[in-house]
């Protein structure tokens, strides 16, 4: 039998109640699925991890499969801040400014050893991990990580986005986290 349909997999329906002519689920789940599959990443690439990210965006690895083909170069329209590379202390305030300009809900992914911990640059001029200045959701280890690792990290972010309740950003825990970074 010839399949006329393509083999592209669509996102499955969330858990819910199904019946004749109707399907009911919670708003959280529906919105979560929509958000997770149309994340707009802002690539904040400063060094070699950025090169691996370019490979990840290329057709061979194809981050577009996950709904992230629309890179946003304006923080105002981005959902996910992907920090890739060494962040010097002088760059720190710039990164923080970019984070502050993003609208909620926003997620942060630290790619590679430098963004996660400073990496080999244990020195006076380099920020020892971006979590010194902004909260981070997912860390990708590696120096630099392979595109597969980037995709894995991105899927971890998707999982967070999918399972997050719509009101999480209003919770006292989240407010406390932001306050610990001096963000109101």
């Amino acid at each position, binding site marked *: 039998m010839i399949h006329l349909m393509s083999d592209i997999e669509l996102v499955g329906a969330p858990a819910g109640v199904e019946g004749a002519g109707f399907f009911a689920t919670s708003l959280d789940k529906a919105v979560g699925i929509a958000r997770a599959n149309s994340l707009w990443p802002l690539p904040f690439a400063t060094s070699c991890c950025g090169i691996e990210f370019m490979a990840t965006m290329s057709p061979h690895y194809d981050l577009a499969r996950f709904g992230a083909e629309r890179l946003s170069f304006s923080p105002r329209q981005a959902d996910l801040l992907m920090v890739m590379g060494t962040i010097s*202390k002088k760059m720190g305030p710039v990164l923080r400014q970019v984070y502050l300009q993003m609208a909620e809900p926003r997620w942060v992914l630290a790619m590679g050893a430098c963004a996660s911990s*400073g990496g080999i640059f244990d020195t*006076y001029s380099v920020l020892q991990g971006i979590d010194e200045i902004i909260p981070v959701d997912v860390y990708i280890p590696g120096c630099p990580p392979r595109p597969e690792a980037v995709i894995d990290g991105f899927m971890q972010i998707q999982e967070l986005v999918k399972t997050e309740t719509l009101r999480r950003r209003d919770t006292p825990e989240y407010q406390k986290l932001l306050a610990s970074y001096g963000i109101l």
Partner: protein
Amino acid sequence: MGKITNEELLAKINAKFGDQLTVVGEPFGLLTLETTRENISGILSWLKTEPSLQFIYLTDLTGIHYPENAGKEIGVIYHLHSLVNNVRIRIKVFLDEKDIHIPTATTLWDGANWMERETYDFFGVLFDGHPDLRRILNVDDMTAFPMRKEFPLEDPNRVDKKDYFFGR
């Protein structure tokens, strides 16, 4: 090979300045002299303007720190290049850690501006007469001079290299 040998160059300098300079050596064929901050401006100015030499290009201006040399801890090093004669020269000035003042070279070369700012940024050398002596590479609110030997190499905020992670 340059059009002037180091011997000829040294003879010319000695004829003009004599006791104001001491010869440190000629590592890799680069004539290296040492002088004091009282004499450095006159020597640089003469090297640049003397028609037979014309050291018109300031290749590099940097600093160095020898904490064990009491009274001469901080060094300022000038590399000059005579494009006409294809010859280079290096001049060092050593300063006391407690009084790190030296006249600026921006009056001779505009290119000295950023080099002196960098030397100030990393070693704390104060260039008297510099038009805009402030930090250039490090963050503005940094209080230390990170290339000095007493400054710790590794960042104290680093947590993932603490001993207890490695059973030490």
